[in-house]
């Protein structure tokens, strides 16, 4: 957490003073974001309405970040990737919550039938 705080305090400084460059390895962040998105898709997040939206947002953000990395805008890419990862993480949570709720509902239905 302190790392994030530090990074977010450094970024405005670097933008203000140097303009561009000097962010942490973008490819590592890209890999993180991509694996988060895979996890969300594997958990069937697309079947939850809000999850489907989040997956799309994450997907788009990753593509944008890739373009930014290509054009050397690592700082920009870093922020885009942070967003992409947050969207993917939320999608995953939505998928899990949906499954848990479904499990609970099925259990309660079966229990009512058995009575």
């Amino acid at each position: 957490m302190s790392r994030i705080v530090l990074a977010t305090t450094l970024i405005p400084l670097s933008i203000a003073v140097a303009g561009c460059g000097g962010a942490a390895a973008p490819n590592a962040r890209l890999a993180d974001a991509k694996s988060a998105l895979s996890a969300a898709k594997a958990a069937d997040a697309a079947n939850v309405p809000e999850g489907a939206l989040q997956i799309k947002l994450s997907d788009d953000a990753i593509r944008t970040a890739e373009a930014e990395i290509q054009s050397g805008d690592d700082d920009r890419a870093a922020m885009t990737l942070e967003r992409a990862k947050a969207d993917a993480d939320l999608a995953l949570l939505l998928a899990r919550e949906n499954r848990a709720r479904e499990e609970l509902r099925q259990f309660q239905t079966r229990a009512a039938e058995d009575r």
Partner: protein
Amino acid sequence: MTLEKRSVLTSTIAAFSFSLVAGCSGATNPSPQLYDAQRAYQRAAASRASELAPDRLLTARETLDRAKAAEPGSAEEQELSYLASRRARMAEVYADYLHDNQELGRARSLQDRAQRERRARAEEDLDRARKQLVKTQHNLAASSAELRARTTEVVTLESQLDDTESKRQAAEKRADDAMRSLQEVANVRAEATETVITLSGAVLFVTGQSELLPIAREKLDRVAAALADSGDDEHIVIAGFTDSRGSRTKNQKLSLDRANAVRDYLVSHGVAPQRVEARGYGPDQPVADNSTPEGRADNRRVEIHIQKKH
């Protein structure tokens, strides 16, 4: 608190960088994303997240604070707001997830407990049913034994009844035989209230005597046999009669002596003495005409009255 210090530090640095590069960013109004982020955070803070996912809520809070500290309208403010929104939503969703799992856990353990109770009750019922079965089997065995005992009793009683019936029939047959045999040697007359056996005086006694002739015994044996098999409640009157010739007093005495002679013989041959009474009627109650020898012979007689007492 460290949190406060960090926020202050961020704000200071941001303000500093803003003053350094006043010309780089132009906008001064806060971006709409910040407003959205505030709302998203408030919603999350009011939900289960504050109880079940406080850490994640805190992360969202910190992100929101950094967003607020950023230069209004800047790309940084926008990005941080976006992240804050997502993190606030994640706190909410995660709290719901935890809540669902808790509920499922509770529901499962309730179900398990209910199942255990049902099983325990079923076992109790089974146990009770088994005990009842054992009791019923004992009762059944006892009833069977009782039934067997009763059946044996019935068989015994039935055979006793057959026995009694046989004896009764035998006695009846003996009585009938005795009567038939008697009828060969005597006049037997059945009337409404009594049976009368008439024996001629000539075959029983020497003329004018009251001593029994030897041949009388054979006849009187048959009479005794017939009387032995008849009912105990019958009263027997032995009546002696004479003809009208001679002294009345003498005839009276003779008739009584003869009646007693017959009585004594019968009593000594099995007839109960208390049943038998001897009477002398002398010349009274003639049955024939005393003016002829045959008539007089008929009047000289002994009558045995078997009186039915019911």
